[in-house]
């Protein structure tokens, strides 16, 4: 394992210290591993928290700030945080207007956030509403699975819901727009290499020099299918077509197109991918209204990429364009 770390067990704790040192406008509760806005709680504003296993940086801590999250809970690598953390975060950001929990659909995350919501309500009477993201079309959504994974849409949802909360919308309205984002967004990912969990010390799975893993999530889970390595044009089609098929897009639909890197893939390759994605969308008459290219929801050092398409309307676009000021996403301010 080759990583810029010290003791593998200290990665999360030390990364949090690094974030604190690099971003004076953020606060870190080291006991609970919570990153929160220096100005939290904002009286009268709906608080938004998220969290999950670490190893997906900048998600979620890099999205804490004006116009996005109020707090983020960092779990161990690839392991959802524990209820106490979300309970502490909920308390930190509750400005009296209630708190939205943004939860990626993984059994562990859902159960720990559930317990946290129960505890928070019992302790402070805080009103908590949870929105679960489940946008990964690689997973069959059926009663025979834990349901689809929450992946790329989570980034777009946190930005858009954050803007809605900043506008002063109430908890139900913020939750509603968040659900609208999840309902209209779909993602699919591909891995060219495995990732290596620091505490495990070796790659989670083996992938031959000529192979790729299609339909991976963001935890080094094996994907749905192992295929021979293909050119970017074919890979892009393998990612985009299932998305378009799953959430019927009509000609002229505006979308927010998000080409994400999984951690070990450099930006130049993401732009090559974006070129292919934009060509495929043009072929379907789908209009790219906004775009995001970069490594925003990662899987440690995995080489690979995911594509997320969000079918947008004027409301979602104006919330997307609203000012945001976080470590990883910033514009308009």
């Amino acid at each position: 394992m080759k990583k810029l770390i010290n003791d593998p067990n200290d990665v999360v704790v030390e990364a949090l210290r690094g974030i604190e040192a690099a971003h004076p406008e953020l606060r870190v509760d080291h006991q609970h591993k919570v990153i929160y806005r220096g100005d939290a709680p904002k009286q009268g504003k709906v608080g938004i928290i998220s969290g999950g296993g670490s190893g997906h940086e900048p998600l979620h801590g890099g999205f804490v700030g004006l116009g996005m999250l109020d707090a983020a809970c960092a779990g161990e690598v690839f392991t959802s945080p524990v209820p106490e953390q979300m309970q502490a975060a909920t308390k930190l950001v509750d400005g009296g207007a209630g708190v939205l929990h943004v939860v990626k659909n993984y059994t562990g995350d859902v159960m720990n956030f559930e317990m946290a919501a129960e505890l928070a309500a019992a302790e402070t009477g805080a009103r908590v509403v949870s929105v679960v993201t489940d946008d990964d079309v690689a997973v069959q959504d059926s009663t025979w699975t834990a349901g689809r994974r929450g992946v790329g849409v989570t980034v777009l949802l946190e930005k858009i819901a954050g803007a809605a909360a900043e506008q002063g919308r109430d908890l139900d309205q913020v939750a509603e727009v968040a659900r609208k984002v999840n309902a209209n967004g779909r993602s699919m990912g591909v891995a060219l290499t495995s990732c290596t969990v620091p505490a495990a010390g070796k790659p989670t799975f083996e992938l031959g020099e000529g192979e790729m893993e299609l339909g991976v999530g963001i935890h080094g889970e094996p994907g749905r299918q192992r295929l021979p390595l293909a050119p970017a044009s074919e890979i892009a089609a393998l990612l985009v077509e299932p998305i378009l098929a799953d959430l019927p897009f009509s000609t002229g639909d505006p979308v927010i197109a998000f080409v994400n890197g999984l951690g070990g893939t450099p930006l130049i390759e993401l732009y090559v991918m974006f070129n292919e994605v934009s060509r495929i969308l043009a072929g379907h008459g789908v209009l790219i209204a906004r775009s995001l290219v970069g490594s925003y929801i990662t899987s440690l050092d995995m080489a690979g990429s995911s594509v997320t398409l969000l079918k947008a309307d004027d409301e979602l676009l104006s919330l997307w364009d609203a000012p945001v000021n976080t470590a990883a996403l910033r514009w308009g301010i």
Partner: protein
Amino acid sequence: MDENVTTAVLEEWVRRFAHLVAENRDHLTELDAAIGDADHGLNMDRGMKAVVAALDAATPATAGALFSKVGMTLVSTVGGASGPLFGTLFLRMGSTLGDAQATSAHELAAAFRAGLGGVVDRGKAGPEDKTMYDALAPAVEALAAAVADGADLASGLKQARDAAAAGRDATTPMLARKGRASYLGERSVGHQDPGATTVALLLDAATETAF
């Protein structure tokens, strides 16, 4: 006849379990790497080490206090799916046993069944979903049956251990319908479930304890 076990014996069971989890940490993680995200052994070991530390700090007086502390510690240190699930298992056992000084075989079997109920409430798993349920449910049944037949705890737990081991092995051919492994669909077949393996260790620990 119906002998009672002291809280000290039950604590010894918990400590044995922590020891076996530590011993099998990498094995559990490898099982999770095949159909999950390669952290189950790390999660359980982190949690049980915290449990041992908590027990070292203060010895619980009652079986109820013991299992509640185990459950709370797991919930607050493990995370992932196994934190709430194993945490709830022990929390329910604790609340069921209450503050009696010693525990009868019947009480332990009943508490164990209550723990299973907690796991189902949280995780909504049933038979053949390829989860810890598939090792835990048979163990609960075996212990209850043995105790109903008047077996003593030691032999009842041996039968529960055998049932758990069989349940664990039975998960290998199953197609996962819960947890991360379910994302794999057909590809989950042929791999043993990590959580079920940990449940079997819990029963192994019991048979290694002088009940």
